[in-house]
């Protein structure tokens, strides 16, 4: 699966797609692959204010539960309801249909500090 050039990536395997003042966030294809079959996704409530690095939610595979961290700071303005009934979408389309949340960015300059698609792929290759 390809890593969109327009997204930015974290070492914790989240991505953010910033568009103006809004950032859509998700987990990477590498992350879903490492987790295996995803069976449950816990997402934050709309209106939650998150600082970069705060726990945004959690993703559970058959075997284990993993925290998801906010890649950037902002207020949660939407969560992906699709995932409450179809968590397996996160295995199928982690960079697209299975986004996790949309944030109203409170520190848009944070985005620039994240990894590019090329850097991220080098990072997971070396991990």
């Amino acid at each position, binding site marked *: 699966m390809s890593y969109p050039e327009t997204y930015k990536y974290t070492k914790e395997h989240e991505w953010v797609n910033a568009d103006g003042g809004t950032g859509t966030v998700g987990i990477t294809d590498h992350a879903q692959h490492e987790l*295996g*079959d995803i*069976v*449950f996704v*816990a997402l934050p409530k709309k209106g939650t204010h998150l600082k970069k690095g705060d726990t945004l939610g*959690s993703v*559970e*595979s*058959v*075997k284990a*539960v993993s925290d998801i961290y906010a890649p950037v700071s902002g207020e949660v303005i939407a969560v992906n309801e699709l995932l*409450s009934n179809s968590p397996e979408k996160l295995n199928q389309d982690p960079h697209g249909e299975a986004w996790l949340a949309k944030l109203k960015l409170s520190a848009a300059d944070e985005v620039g500090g994240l990894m590019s698609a090329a850097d991220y792929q080098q990072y997971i290759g070396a991990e």
Partner: protein
Amino acid sequence: MTDTELKRTPLFDAHSALKARMVDFGGWNMPVQYSGIIEEHNAVRNAAGLFDVSHMGEIEIRGPEAQRLVDYVSTNNAAKLKAGQAHYSALLYEHGGFADDILVHKISDAHFFLCVNASNQEKDFEHIRSLNSFEAEVDFASERYAQIAIQGPKALSILQKLTEAKLDEIKYYWFADGSVSGVTARIARTGYTGEDGFEVYVAPENAFRIWNELLSAGAEFGMKPCGLGARNTLRLEAKMALYGHEITASINPFEADLGWIVKMDKGEFVGRAALEMALANGITRKLTGFEMKDRGIARDGYEVWVNGEPAGWVTSGGPSPTLGKNIGLCYLPAENAAPGVPIQIQIRNAPVEALTVPTPFYKREKA
């Protein structure tokens, strides 16, 4: 511990070839999944799955008093086994808690073959040896056996392609010594999945070839190689205990709902006095099944609340691929250990509603 320090089964190269995801399981480098836990789980329920369980330990007990030693160290009644028959049993400590759960196979009056948990095998061997005041030899045999489990409704048809043994004549919890792929094998109709199937014990040097021949034989039936992940979801649905979770040194068999493997009337055995006292005092906690009612997955170690107070703990939990529900097992006070009791699982500091239910969660339809 690095991967190179982990113990490997004779099938390590087979797992590499299949690109299995490997994990450290009690010091063993074992496959947790190949194609995906849910897909593997469903293959076992609907067709068949092939498991490397060579990490399991084997202990052989021989001699004129072999049966007396087995009966002294384990809870089930080995004297009632016939040659070629196996049963589930437990090794207890004097205080009544589990040292391990085991399978006992009677090969002859003077020869018993025990299958024990991988991480307990050295401990079990020392335990049994320390209790051996009989005319019996205790032999640590793990290095002489690899074990391959083939489980699922198609297991018999697949294994039958590689053996002359009449598999349909081997009853559940019986075994036959014969051959598979032309080499000596012990073929037991046992398993840890809640399905029909076989556990095949072979010499380690033959395991790789037999594994590959079984994989080929099973292809037409939709058999898949299965890892420890599917093994765990399958055994949980069937409510089969896992050492370190449902059963530990501080749990006795009555608490674990395993009273049926304890034969109090068979005579003296290790742990018996403690169990008599436990029964006289009344069993205060019991293993109980539950289903999640609200969204969330219970995991091992999570606290369980009843009526607003801490009451027990989760021993195993996860999604049930067969039922499409999130299920689990927990210890609860005996008065709450019945189906239909609302409980709350503390999932990451938030209570999530669950309900106790009858077990097993899944029971196959008898042929």
